[in-house]
């Protein structure tokens, strides 16, 4: 028996040593965007994090079928995990096992940057230029996908604008108007609460919606560079811009801006509160246009809904037409499996995609097509789309795509505590400064 155990232990150790030696290995040249050779059709996979029945997936399925007609044997296997945290875990585990498929979704996170540095992703800048598509893209859509050093490794499939949607009737009832400055928001919440109205509906369960708010004040006060410095430890929450956002978040909490018990309420809970006329404001992007700006919206509130873009502040360094305008999670191309087939399919699909996508009523990441406004749209739909024509050069980057994952997780947790008044702004500042100090160096060496 003892002997058997010993044998098992040795076997285990040997297996460990072997797995430790494995991994890594053959990566191709990420800059070689036009591989030569014969196109041999096969099945390729795209690991993605998009709604299962959404426009992107439906269109890409159709384009893959069209491509397969001329290339028998080709198939595009779409593996989607819409829940973002689960998706990220899946992606990171597959990356660790060196088993990433031909195409995979990722934001411009520090983790993705490490993959790019290791040469595991094809240079999208070069790829799009070689396909003569680069100039079609909205600069903002590409910028959203770029890493801090300006390099581009992901291709956008969407273009969205985030607005603060509001209910005119409720604001009127409370005697408040659209805030001119971010600093007006807490007082506005107090007035709305006095009138018995929930000021802002927020999805607290998914954490990113609350994290959006922490990005606003620094973006106005110090511009888009602040978070880039903050995440590396070159700036801190003790700086003027940092303190401004910490204090502002605490004020939002004190003024009871968000619905009671928001931290355990989900995406649809929040949206329902707004569309049922209980909450006065709701911060969400143009991906919700089909439910907020068409006749699908509750008739009781339909005529009262409008939106405003991110308010500025006094002395803001960014303009009113610069706010959160993400191009969604991007698609990266695995350099290891990049061959004439993948290249040829991408050329085929990326050329045809924008027209198909714009026809669904969504904003294309390119400027060469016109978005079709659906027949059941309210006038707000057109207004939202037109906002995209007049955007500044800078954009607010969501912090969850910027910070290292540990600091990001801690920030999401501490923000809830700060807004609920469970910790003071001073405690928040020192906890977050420590978290960055401890975790950032590992990711931004």
């Amino acid at each position, binding site marked *: 028996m003892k002997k058997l155990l010993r044998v098992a232990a040795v076997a285990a150790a040997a297996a460990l040593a072997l797995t430790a030696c494995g991994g890594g290995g053959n990566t191709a040249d990420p800059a070689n965007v036009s591989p030569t050779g014969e196109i041999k059709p096969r099945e390729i996979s795209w690991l993605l994090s998009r709604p299962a029945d959404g426009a992107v997936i439906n269109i890409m399925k159709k384009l893959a079928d069209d491509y397969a007609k001329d290339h028998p044997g080709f198939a595009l296997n779409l593996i989607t995990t819409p829940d973002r945290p689960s998706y990220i875990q899946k992606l990171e585990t597959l990356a660790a096992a060196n088993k990433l498929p031909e195409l995979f979704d990722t934001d411009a996170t520090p983790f993705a940057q490490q993959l790019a540095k290791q040469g595991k992703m094809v240079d999208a800048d070069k790829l799009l230029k070689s396909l003569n598509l680069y100039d079609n893209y909205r600069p903002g859509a590409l910028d959203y996908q770029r890493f801090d050093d300006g390099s581009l490794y992901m291709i956008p499939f969407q273009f969205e604008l985030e607005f603060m949607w509001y209910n005119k009737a409720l604001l009127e009832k409370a005697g408040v108007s659209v805030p001119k400055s971010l600093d007006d928001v807490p007082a506005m919440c107090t007035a709305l609460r006095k009138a018995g109205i929930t000021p802002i509906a927020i999805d607290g369960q998914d954490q990113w919606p609350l994290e959006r708010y922490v990005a606003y004040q620094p973006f106005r006060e110090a511009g888009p560079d602040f978070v880039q410095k903050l995440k590396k430890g070159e700036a801190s929450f003790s700086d003027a811009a940092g303190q401004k956002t910490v204090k502002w978040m605490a004020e939002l909490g004190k003024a009871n801006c968000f619905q009671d018990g928001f931290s355990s309420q989900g995406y649809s809970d929040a949206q329902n509160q707004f569309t049922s006329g209980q909450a006065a404001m709701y911060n969400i992007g143009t991906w919700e246009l089909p439910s907020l700006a068409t006749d699908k919206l509750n008739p009781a509130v339909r005529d009262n809904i409008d939106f405003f873009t991110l308010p500025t502040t006094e002395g803001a360094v960014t303009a009113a037409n610069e706010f959160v305008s993400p191009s969604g999670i991007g698609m990266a191309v695995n350099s290891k499996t990049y061959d004439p087939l993948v290249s040829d399919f991408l050329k085929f699909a990326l050329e045809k995609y924008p027209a198909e996508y714009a026809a669904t009523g969504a904003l294309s990441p390119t400027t060469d097509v016109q978005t079709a406004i659906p027949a059941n749209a309210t006038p707000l739909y057109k207004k939202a789309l037109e906002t995209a024509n007049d955007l500044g050069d800078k954009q607010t980057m969501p912090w969850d795509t910027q910070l290292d994952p540990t600091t990001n*997780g801690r920030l999401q947790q501490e923000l*809830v505590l700060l807004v609920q008044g469970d910790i003071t702004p001073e405690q928040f500042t020192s906890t977050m400064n420590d978290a960055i100090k401890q975790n950032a160096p590992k990711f931004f060496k």
Partner: protein
Amino acid sequence: MLPNRSRTSVLVFLLPPLLLYCAAVLFPILQSLFLSFFSWNGISDMEFVGLQNYVRMLTADDVFWRSFFNALLYLAICLVLQLGGALVVASLLTSLRRGRELIKTLYLLPAVISTVAIAFLFVRIYSIDPVGLLNQLLHWVGLGSFERAWLSDVNTVLAAVSAPEGWRFTGLYMLIIYAALIAVPKELEEAAVLDGASKWTLFTKIRFPYIRPVWITTTIMATTYGLRGFDIPYLMTNGGPGQSSELLTTYMYKTAFTSTDFGYASTISVFIVIECLVAVGLILFMLKRKADS
């Protein structure tokens, strides 16, 4: 005793499950132990850091200690609900003449419902906006001042996520204890009653000593399950608000799969293994000493 030949055959039959056990349990534990000495994010080169992860865990990580104490409180609440509740219900059941089967089934029902369904169910029960069952009940009985967002309040959230786990398995342990209780010889009990023993004496002197072996097993089962509790807290609050309902297991999971700090997550998992072993050792030691005295 088995003759020699059949002992060999028994060993031969025991071998496959043993190998399976080694591959599925021992190997991952050893692998975690190995990984816990490294700094590794899954895609970088593994860097040997010696005991650094352990030093960080024990001296420099406030979230780790917070989750450790949360896990202990979570365990305590689960144990009280599961074992205490199970013992009370099982004892009452034995004195029931009719409808035992129905009640047993009803109590066991939560154990067969999927965890995700239970988590969603309780999120609704605890909700304040729209008003959930718990707050509604409090309102009806005139305790409106206790109404709150149970899952958003840092003082109540841990108890709120422990209760569903406790509630869920009460029926299962009740069944085990009930089976042990009905196996207590009737003549022993009758003799004691004739000697004038009260219900309480009957329970403490006859019934409980008789079911002690089963009690030990259920305590060990409930403790190890409690220490490994993960799904309900993770699904209901994801450890929040802040770290108020973060358990060692959820923290380990996040460290591994969100922070991609596989080395440090392995260190935490090694701690969980040791913690489980210590807990089981303590239970055996305490109950043995009690039995001896």
